[in-house]
């Protein structure tokens, strides 16, 4: 009996997926503060070759946004290059009933959900899990111990006090889509 309950629990866990509203928002390069980062791809065969769904994060205004783009091409490389074209991207917003409108589509995905959250020294994170620095000149990358790093800020409101921390994250290795380690926070 215990085994049956465990199995049921596993089935319900693996079947769940996060759902979002896909909102077609035209993004102009002026609005965007970063290149696409933390990209995740899903490639499936298509009658025209390969279909690539790219999910990535870009910093727009003051926030990281999740964007999804779909591209079709003869090869995986072509399809994914098209999917990463910002002009084809649609922002993904978490599902909330007020946001549903006639031109919205709900999409569900098992890809990992990346969002800004509090971090601790030593944590391994995606770059867009921490906020860009609020001062634009402090957003630039820098080198520290032969790794590429950048500063971040974290807001913490507790007991009616707002704490603003800053910190440093450094890329784990040189591959373009690698994760980052929280080196310091203060």
């Amino acid at each position, binding site marked *: 009996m215990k085994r049956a309950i465990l199995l049921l629990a596993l089935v319900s866990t693996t079947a769940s997926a996060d759902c979002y509203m896909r909102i077609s928002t035209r993004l102009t390069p002026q609005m965007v503060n970063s290149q696409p980062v933390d990209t995740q791809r899903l490639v499936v065969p298509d009658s025209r070759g390969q279909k690539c769904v790219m999910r990535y994060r870009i910093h727009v205004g003051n926030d990281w946004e999740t964007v999804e783009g779909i591209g079709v091409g003869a090869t995986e490389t072509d399809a994914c290059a098209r999917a990463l074209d910002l002009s084809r991207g649609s922002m993904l917003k978490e599902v909330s009933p007020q946001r549903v409108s006639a031109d919205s589509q709900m999409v569900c995905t098992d890809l990992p959900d990346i969002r800004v959250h509090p971090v601790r*020294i030593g944590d391994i994170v995606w770059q867009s899990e921490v906020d860009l620095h609020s001062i634009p000149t402090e957003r*630039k990358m*820098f*080198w*520290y111990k032969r790794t590429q790093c950048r500063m971040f800020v974290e807001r913490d409101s507790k007991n009616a006090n707002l*704490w603003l921390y800053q910190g*440093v994250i450094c890329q784990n290795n040189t591959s373009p889509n690698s994760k980052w380690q929280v080196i310091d*926070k203060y």
Partner: protein
Amino acid sequence: MAVLLVGCATRPYQPQAMTYSEIERIQLTNADCGRADSFISMMGEQLRLKGYAGKNPEELATEEDRKYNSRAKVVMWSLRIGCNNPNRYK
């Protein structure tokens, strides 16, 4: 030959951390890059003496602790970033 020390101070030397206002008065210029490593290690020592080393800011008990920790780390990172990335602020 045996030397007998009589009447010497017996209290062991206990280094004390700099005060917040002493750390706040530190002004850095490009000329300090030549001794950046010793500055950084001195600031690290202050954090160790205070018991803040390796701690997240949320773990520090008071606002004064967080201010001190933050100010010392700003000095350390200003040297690490500014001295090794000369084109960053151009």
